[in-house]
């Protein structure tokens, strides 16, 4: 499995459709303070099914929709899509390309999609279950969480090991 693209539209500080092509190996993201780097990490976790608003630095789901600037109006909805190359069949779907998408608009609950088929957060978590990659797993270390495993409680750590089992 390899992440090929992340596509953001209306999510946090990304009002316009933004496509990030990812490569094998080490993809490094740089940029000034406040430019939107950690928002990309939040977008990945959000699409992977993260439900806790606070853990994405928001206080309500509306905080994930672009709030507008002096020149550009607020967006009506937030949408993030991640497209994976599944030719290794790491994900239990018999297709070469797997797309997961999450859309949230002001009037409704968020919607999840797997290859454009309506799904739930649970389905995405099940799809990635055996990979160890999840919104709260060991494979994502957020900014400021550098001492993640050390400051966890003994039971939080247990959850990490069960995932790694």
């Amino acid at each position, binding site marked *: 499995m390899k992440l090929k693209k992340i596509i953001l539209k209306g999510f946090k500080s990304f009002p316009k459709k933004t496509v990030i092509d990812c490569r094998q190996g080490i993809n490094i993201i*740089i940029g000034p303070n406040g430019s939107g780097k*950690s928002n990309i990490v939040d977008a990945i976790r959000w699409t992977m099914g993260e439900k806790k608003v606070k853990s994405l630095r928001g206080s309500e789901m509306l905080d994930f929709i672009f709030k507008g600037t002096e020149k550009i109006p607020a967006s009506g909805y937030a949408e993030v899509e991640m497209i994976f190359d599944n030719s290794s069949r790491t994900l239990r779907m018999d297709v070469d390309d797997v797309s997961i998408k999450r859309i949230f608009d002001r009037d409704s609950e968020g919607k999840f999609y797997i290859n454009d088929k309506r799904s739930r957060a649970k389905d995405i978590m099940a799809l990635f279950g055996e990979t160890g990659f999840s919104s709260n797993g060991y494979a994502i270390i957020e900014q400021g969480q550098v001492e993640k495993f050390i400051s966890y409680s003994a039971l939080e750590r247990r959850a990490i090991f069960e995932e790694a089992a």
Partner: protein
Amino acid sequence: ICEKLTETIQNINVFFSQTFQEIFEGGDAKVVMTDPANPLETGIDIEVRLPGKNISTRTLFSGGEKALVTAALLFAIFLQNPTPLCVLDEMDAPLDEVNIMKFFNMIKKFSENIQFIVVTHNKKSMEFADVMYGVTMEEKGVSKVMSVEFKGA
């Protein structure tokens, strides 16, 4: 569940010792059950011995040392159960230059099997990029992503 957890811990400890000694050049670390008599409920603790130091209280460790212990454990988990994708957001912030090189040299080795997305401000870290993206806000409040040409590997 019980056997599986016990087995996972044993395996991870083999790797944890290895990654810890690669980073710290000595000392040792392992994960232990807080309540081994009750594998269904037990929590997991980390025991660390820093090379040449008599300290076991983790609160006395420095900011960089704690970050490196987290890195060693992360890499041990990767050796036990490689995940296809890993995202790290400024994990190099507390590290000195020598440890940044060590940290990224290990990431480079893992990157044959694991795809990494790494956010950093550090020039030394950028030298390890296979591809680099710059995020800017040319227009205030609006993020834009551009691929950055660099002298690259």
